[in-house]
């Protein structure tokens, strides 16, 4: 069994020095890493960067325009911000992750930085057009979470750098929906999350966003653009045409997920048809 060297950086600057080491594992909540290890001993790589206690990664701040969340803020701490601070779509997503005890360990940064699949916060954050700050010694880069989706819909989280903060725009949403399908306690191939958010201005649809993700992600800006600007409520014919577009997008999904996605799209469009 490999014995790892554990680094406990006292601040972000020290962590950014260490993150350059090849093969080093960033460890915050550790729920994603350890939940798949059923043996007695934990298996970790040769070097581990323990970031849970770094003060800069534990901060949250709220302005009129956005909520900033440190990457090592746990999902429980996120939910404790309350409904007045937390966008409802993100709150729903956080509540659907694990159990309350797991949420005391799991961090939002870890959830969004998963490389093998999209975890449950991604669809909500994608709908909200959240930004993620990635830092290395060279400086900071802000990336929209939608860029973590490759052209083939698979996760494309950038190599190198440390996720330090997430910035979620504070906007008014008139309708939203978040549903998790498949086993609820831990992601399986048949697990995915559907997120929808829409806003109207003077009876016209000003924004409509739909994201769905599990092993692969679906989000179509062109379909969203085709909806925006329509008068509300949508006619049943308009809703059916839009739904058809989304259902053809779902051809890449396994059959069961494609069916569930279709039902959820119908439900979301139904909210705009009433």
């Amino acid at each position, binding site marked *: *069994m*490999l*014995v*790892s*060297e*554990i680094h*406990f950086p006292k601040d972000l600057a020290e962590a950014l020095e260490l993150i350059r080491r090849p093969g080093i594992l960033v*460890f915050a909540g*550790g*729920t994603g890493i*350890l*939940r*798949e*290890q*059923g*043996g*007695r*001993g*934990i*298996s*970790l790589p040769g070097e*581990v960067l*323990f970031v*849970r206690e770094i003060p800069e990664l534990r901060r949250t701040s709220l302005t009129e325009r956005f909520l900033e969340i440190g990457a090592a803020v746990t999902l*429980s701490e996120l939910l404790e911000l309350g409904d007045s601070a937390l966008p409802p779509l993100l709150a729903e997503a956080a509540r659907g992750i*694990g*159990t*309350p*005890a*797991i949420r*005391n*360990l799991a961090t939002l940064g870890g959830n969004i930085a998963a490389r093998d699949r999209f975890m449950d916060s991604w669809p909500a954050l994608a709908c909200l057009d959240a930004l993620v700050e990635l830092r290395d010694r060279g400086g900071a880069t802000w990336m929209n979470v939608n860029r973590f989706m490759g052209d083939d819909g698979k996760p494309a989280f950038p190599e190198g750098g440390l996720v330090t903060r997430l910035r979620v725009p504070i906007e008014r949403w008139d309708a939203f929906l978040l549903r998790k399908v498949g086993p609820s*306690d*831990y992601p399986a191939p048949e697990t995915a999350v559907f997120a929808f958010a829409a806003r109207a201005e003077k009876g016209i649809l000003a924004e409509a966003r739909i994201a769905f993700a599990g092993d692969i992600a679906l989000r179509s800006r062109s379909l969203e653009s085709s909806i925006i600007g329509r008068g509300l409520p949508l006619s049943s014919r308009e809703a059916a045409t839009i739904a058809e577009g989304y259902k053809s997008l779902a051809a890449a999904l396994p059959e069961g997920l494609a069916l569930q996605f279709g039902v959820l799209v119908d439900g979301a469009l139904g909210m705009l048809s009433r």
Partner: protein
Amino acid sequence: MTISFILNGEDVSANARTVDRLSDLLRDAFGLLGLQSDCRCGRCGRCFVFLDGRLVPSCILPAFSVRGKEIVTIEGFAQTEEYRDVVEGFETAGLETCGFCKGPKILAMADLLERVPRPTPREVLAHMSSVPCRCTDPVALVEAARAIVERRAGRIYRRAGQ
């Protein structure tokens, strides 16, 4: 490596390997057998401890990660008035648990009432989903939460009157 932390109110140190789970360290080095390390994926709840006052599954917590932290196990929690509130609230509500999940359910209920002083039935059931053992009647869980709230309020009221 040697890690120092506070365990059930006492400063302790232990030699821990980087491969050790906290649940195994607590059982093997400190003889705290009130927690189990069964599922090793944080799902069953039988390894619950309080980490700096928050309920966590210690089987998915590396021992090295509790350096400088405060850990309370069911053995330590059993010395508190809050424990007695929960146990007597369970009895008042007629709540029965199997031998496997009694400790975790006591800790989970105490954790809920620490954060939400008067939980709704929905909040009780959502929080107690941390312990998925199905031996307990959900209605009794909700009744127990109500009984504990009343008992705790009475205790605090009596203390204020003294």
